[in-house]
């Protein structure tokens, strides 16, 4: 009876486990929401992100452009961006990278970047593998991992067999990067497989285990290796050495010009400090996150050091834009970013005049706090937030200021 119950339970367990194979949903993007809020709110503030298109044919190009500000409130628990790499986050090489630039400097190698500075990037990719892919700009920072920018679902159309990536070497040869050298790799693996299989078959064509073991146990091991075996072994030894020598010499003759793999840390100057990214100063006095309302409230003093009246237009944190609906000129310029339209409410006099310091009470509320898994910031050990405030000036320009500070949750 006991055995029957165990068998029954085992059968049910196997069936249930097997049934899970029937449910295999497509992975939507690649887990950017799983990053802890402090990584997304207090490291890289992406803005002005733009994708030139959301449909790209195989071999056609798409350009990603934008800027990012490296937060001065960079978390202590991760390394500073002394070694960073401008990259693309995508599910496998659905698009191939053609060019990437950071402040006009080629981004094939790694950079040393500075906190509190702004950088402008441009990444050109080429459609490769047909399908729909979620593609982001990304900044990899050594020991911190990938810090992902706003993403866009991009449809790649066409036929993979048509994909090519032609480049010209400094020796004047034009090659296809997608297939280059692979036929030669396969050829030489096959060439070397022949003597290896011959050697194995030479020995296992005869009885392998039991008789040989018994003979060895009986002290008859010398009889197990014949004179022919020795001749074959000598031939294999010499043949192997000759083939290695010949193949390496032929490669050196065929490719006399070779260079080692290239790697370096490249310095890059940040974008210059302008009134637009330095004239406005903000100081957080108090910040709360109200869990039931999925809203964040802040009290802060804003000093307008510019020459024009300004109004708070947007709070941006972790690629989520909370915008002020009272400023109708604000348009969604970026199709990739998550937009809480009208999610930003400012109490009190909205206009801050030049030289004035005004106390603002603002509320950023939207379900995106929950769906983007930012509300879990209350579980962080340092309980802090970060983001960027954007002010619209009467002169038509946008002024920005990074903010950060401790945050206290409200449970009622």
């Amino acid at each position, binding site marked *: 009876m006991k055995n029957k119950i165990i068998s029954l339970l085992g059968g049910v367990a196997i069936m249930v486990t097997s049934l899970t194979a029937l449910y295999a949903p497509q992975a939507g993007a690649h887990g950017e929401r799983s990053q802890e809020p402090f990584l997304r709110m207090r490291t890289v503030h992406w803005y002005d992100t733009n994708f030139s298109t959301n449909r790209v044919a195989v071999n056609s190009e798409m350009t990603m452009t934008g800027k990012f500000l490296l937060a001065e409130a960079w978390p202590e628990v991760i390394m500073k961006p002394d070694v960073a790499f401008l990259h693309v986050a995508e*599910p496998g090489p659905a698009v191939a990278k053609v060019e990437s*630039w950071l402040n006009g400097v*080629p981004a094939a190698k790694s950079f040393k970047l500075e906190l509190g500075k702004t950088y402008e990037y441009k990444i050109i990719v080429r459609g490769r593998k047909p399908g729909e892919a979620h593609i982001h700009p990304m900044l990899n920072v050594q020991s911190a991992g990938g810090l992902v920018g706003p993403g866009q679902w991009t449809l790649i159309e066409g036929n993979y067999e048509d994909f090519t990536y032609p480049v010209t070497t400094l020796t004047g*040869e034009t090659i296809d990067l997608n297939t280059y050298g692979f036929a030669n*790799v396969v050829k030489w693996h096959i060439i070397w*497989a022949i003597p290896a299989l011959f050697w194995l078959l030479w020995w296992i064509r005869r009885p392998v285990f039991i008789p040989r073991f018994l003979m060895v146990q009986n002290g008859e091991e010398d009889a197990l290796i014949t004179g022919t075996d020795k001749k074959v072994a000598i031939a294999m030894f010499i043949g192997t050495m000759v083939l290695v020598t010949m193949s390496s010499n032929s490669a050196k003759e065929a490719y006399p010009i070779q260079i080692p793999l290239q790697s370096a840390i490249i310095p890059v100057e940040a974008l210059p400090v302008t009134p637009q990214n330095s004239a406005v100063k903000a100081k957080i006095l108090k910040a709360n996150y109200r869990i039931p309302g999925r809203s964040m409230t802040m009290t802060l003093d804003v000093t307008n050091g510019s020459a024009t009246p300004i109004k708070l237009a947007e709070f941006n944190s972790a690629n989520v834009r909370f915008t002020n609906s009272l400023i109708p000129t604000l348009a969604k310029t970026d199709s990739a970013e998550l937009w809480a339209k009208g999610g930003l409410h400012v109490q009190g006099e909205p206009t801050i005049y030049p030289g004035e310091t005004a106390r603002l009470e603002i509320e950023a509320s939207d379900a995106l706090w929950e769906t983007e898994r930012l509300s879990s910031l209350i579980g962080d050990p340092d309980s802090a937030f970060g983001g960027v405030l954007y002010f619209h000036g009467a002169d038509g320009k946008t002024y920005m200021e990074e903010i950060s500070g401790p945050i206290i949750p409200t449970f009622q």
Partner: protein
Amino acid sequence: MSATAQSVGAKSAGDLSPVMASMSRKFDFLLVPILFLAITGAVHIHVMLLAGDWDFWVDWKDRRFWITITPIVTICFPAAIQYVTWVYFRLPIGATLCIVGLLFGEWMNRYWGFTIWSGFPATLTWPAMLIASALILDTVLMLSRNWLATAIVGAPLFALLFYAQNIVILAPYHVPMEHMGQLMSIADMIGYAFVRTATPEYLRMIERGTLRTFGGESALIASFFAAFICMIMYAAWWKLGEIGSRQTWIKSMFDKSAKVRA
């Protein structure tokens, strides 16, 4: 009836009755593929865990770490399996068996995993060749009949031949090109173009310069260093092979077999 071609006569311990000889051969046919797959799995996971990225990507195959690490990591199982195949069966195929298994596993992994599933071009992900090294290790053991001689002569050759046998497939990837005004090898460019989201450029553990102080012969120096370490690794793993094969149940099984034969 003799069951082995090397039987030394009617009194040889290898002489089995026709029934036992037939069963013994069936046992061979059953065990050889099982052992091959088991060795493939073991060697493959060992090498991929310890030298994985250097073997996965063409832009990791440098003149320093790849040449140093791959032979050192790869010689372990050949040494241990050689102990078993040589000492118990006088079969000088331990190294070749391991490396053929490793390459079989790698090609399966690269084709199904990297190319079909993940979409990486095969030109980025091909495995390194090691068969020449394995053949030398096996033939040196067989001709010398001495594990110490194999450690002193065969193991260094295992490492020294690693880079030499791979130049023929690697050289085309080290041809220079210019991209965005920067000098790159084709291998660098392949790694740059075909995005590995979790592998930024700085993660590559490749030659960054210090060995160039020795006359620019980084590959040669790395090969000789690997050769020296391979001597030690071979001896250590030969000994591990001995410890690992102290299976009393195996002895018991073959003792019973001998009794049946008698």
